[in-house]
């Protein structure tokens, strides 16, 4: 039996179908979860996909954290269940304090949509084990509230404990004409694109791995598939 991965839909969630597809492409079974339902239907892991849950009213992710489904997700995540938050899902994870820090409006105040180069800084979490430490990947980024911030103490702690999972990659110094997508797109502190909790089961990031799982679609790369194959191996091994 293959792993069952829950994909939560809040009102205003946009990338739920994409995430279900990515789970399927990786070979696992996607299980739709509804925000009003506390029941996680015995899934092995949960993804909180991107979008504008509750219209981002008040603050991105601020209302979703109070939804019934999140009560169970938080409880299970603390007990070790793997949880991945993508974009708005990452914002929800910080609002629930499963992950530290917060997201502010991008420094240039625009929505930005582009291929984004990332460096994998921690290839030992439940969601990143299929990548190499230091590997460069390119996956779509699309947000307006993507600027990761936390106080210095928290940032130092994240660095010291190896909990920065992804950083926006700087262009290679020797490249005369670097490809698109390098650099920090939104002013995130220390170029942080994604982080993990101490246990490595909860990961959140702003860019979108679920949009980079098929060679024909989107960026034309499959660099995001590793998130979903990582979790599958993790669960099968467990």
């Amino acid at each position: 039996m293959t792993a069952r991965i829950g994909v939560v839909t809040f009102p205003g969630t946009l990338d739920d179908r994409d995430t279900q597809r990515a789970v399927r492409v990786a070979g696992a079974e996607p299980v739709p979860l509804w925000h009003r339902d506390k029941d996680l239907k015995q899934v092995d892991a949960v993804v909180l996909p991107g979008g504008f849950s509750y219209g981002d009213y008040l603050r991105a992710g601020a209302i979703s954290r109070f939804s019934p489904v999140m009560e169970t997700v938080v409880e299970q995540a603390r007990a070790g269940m793997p949880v991945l938050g993508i974009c708005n899902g990452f914002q929800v994870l910080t609002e629930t304090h499963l992950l530290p820090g917060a997201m502010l409006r991008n420094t240039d105040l625009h929505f930005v949509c582009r291929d984004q180069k990332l460096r994998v800084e921690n290839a030992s979490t439940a969601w990143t084990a299929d990548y190499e430490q230091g590997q460069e990947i390119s996956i779509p980024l699309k947000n307006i509230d993507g600027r990761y911030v936390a106080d210095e103490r928290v940032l130092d702690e994240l660095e010291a404990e190896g909990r920065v999972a992804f950083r926006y990659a700087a262009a290679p110094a020797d490249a005369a004409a670097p490809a698109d997508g390098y650099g920090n797109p939104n002013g995130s502190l220390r170029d942080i694109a994604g982080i993990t909790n101490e246990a490595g089961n909860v990961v959140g990031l702003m860019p979108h791995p679920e949009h980079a799982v098929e060679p024909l679609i989107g960026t034309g790369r499959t660099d995001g598939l590793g998130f979903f194959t990582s979790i599958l191996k993790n669960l099968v091994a467990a």
Partner: protein
Amino acid sequence: MSLDTVKHAEQTPDVELPWKELGLKEDEYARVREILGRRPTGAELAMYSVMWSEHCSYKSSKVHLRQFGEKAPQSDAMLVGIGENAGVVDVGEGYAVTFKVESHNHPSYVEPYQGAATGVGGIVRDIIAMGARPVAVVDPLRMGAADHPDTKRVLPGVVAGIGGYGNCLGLPNIGGELVFDACYQGNPLVNAGAIGVMRHEDIHLAKASGTGNKVILYGARTGGDGIGGASILASETFDDAKPSKRPAVQVGDPFQEKLLIECTLEAFAERLVVGIQDLGAAGLSCATSELASNGSGGMRVELDDVPLRDSTLSPEEILMSESQERMCAVVEPDKVDRFLAICEKWDVIATVVGEVTDGTRLEIFWHGEKIVDLDPRTVAHDGPVYERPYARPDWLDALQADDAAKLARPASGDELREQVLKVVASPNQASKAWVTDQYDRFVQGNTVLAQPEDSGMIRINEETGLGVALATDGNGRYAKLDPYTGAQLALAESYRNVAATGARPLAVSDCLNFGSPEDPAVMWQFAEAVRGLADGCLQLGTPVTGGNVSLYNQTGEAAIHPTPVVAVLGVIDDVARRTPIAFKESGQLLYLLGDTRQEFGGSAWSDVVHGHLGGLPPQVDLERERLLAEILISASRDGMIDAAHDLSDGGLVQAITESCLRGRNGARLIVPDGLDAFTFLFSESAGRAVVAVPRSEELRFTDMCGARGLPATRIGVVDGDAVEVQGEFTLPLAELRSAHEETVPSLFG
């Protein structure tokens, strides 16, 4: 004033009503009285005034638009034609696609963010009202001069509005255009297009049938925003002396619309809906009268039951409000509970506000009194029809005689190089990534191609790879020189763009943006453009499935360039065969397809280098366009080409620049025999494309072109990190890139 009921209107025939303030003309008001056999009530007047506005009734354009039906080519693909919320075409495998382009020009000038945002919202509701899931949006834009201070107010607001709304809805933005021209300074054009996909059996229509069926209003509460938007804003020219029209612009809430999409599609899936209509221009007046008019019976509506945002609204205001994110469904009585439950699941307010009756009248009640009693057809379909006078403008001869051939051309390779840089860096020819990077093009996970590709492409069947492509084009400069040819050039370019990506053009939608119909010169431009488009569609075999007309894009005497924007929808059997624009493989051979002539009238070069607009636009040869399209589609299907780019404004050098920069490869070009370097690079002759052919496919490809009679000229090779035109100049990619990519961010970033 006490309530103006039908009874009261009968008793007080002499009461003066503000018909003029509501935008009706004297003879139109007389006609309303004649239809009703009495004076209208305030509420009836409100309904007639918005529904008979230019925006809703097409009263000036109708007599011309008939040609789209009369000259329609035979097409098996057409499932639903002109007159419904949006046209529907068959794309195979049991799928149907609906698409449409609409204008939101006037509101976007008054209030750029909300105007543009609600433009996206409106077109998307048209798509869901047909029963389809929206899968993509596009936004053709026309702005005033790039360096004008007001453009800095309008464009960033419009882009943020389109992004803010579309991104939040989860719809990939896959195409569109951005053109700057001083003629749009006080009248920017904000057109919005959308595509939706459904199964054939899921097509829904706007009609209220079945006596006793319930009329359910669902979505946002009704507020005081956008009152009279269609009649006052969209149907008159701007005049500096009048007070701000900002209150007539609607305010959008994309989150509410996202819920509306999901809950509507769920209700469709459970087959709960008999008829459906979105509430856009003219709000409830439009939805109730159109549903009732298209159905078999009458309709009775209790206006007190409409959920309000502002409890002080009068019944007239409720009928005229253009509050966004509302829809109206007709549901059988035993399915009402289930319909309401689905709305509750998605936190959408839904209220039964009326029912279908066995009569023929639309009757609306307020506090138990009848305030509207009329034949809905007279509101929805029997509006005035004008045969506006039109005449070829007297200035046209002089304009056409001012031939671009006499303009000074570059005298040396260095000068040519300098002009190439100047053209590709000009705001119109420069990269629009600053705009399109503010739109989500990835969401839904089916985007195969998006801007700056020749057309946007969406996969609709994951198993088979079936997909659709959409391109929008329109060149106001060409249309100003010759509106008949200009409209056909817009059609030809859009058709060519779809074919360049490997898709087969199937159907057409349009958004016709013009000045005031009360000016005979403008009316002539409109009539000529419609005639050109209808003739062109007949010849290419692509029917017009619907469209939109935006008139009064005029400030004082100054009308915009006639700007017919043409959208062509294409279908591709397997998106894996799509052709992108990027020159990705060094060593591939570059072929120029088609004939290059001395055609510079209305060209980008004449504008950028000389500030000139005159002469005639390029010739149109639609048979050639069809042949070129067939070659591009065959070459894509059989793997003979790896890249293709259509040639249009800016000519060959524009296409080469975009394809090289996107592929991160240079090109070495040789000027073919019989052409000079300048004409080779800048001519805007139609019916052309440049393709990159792998060496292994060269013979097969040139044989095919030869056999079918399409001129194919080898012009060079993909190579190096510069664009080199042999014997003329060399332009390093880095220099070309900064020229092409820095302009728009430096103006608006």
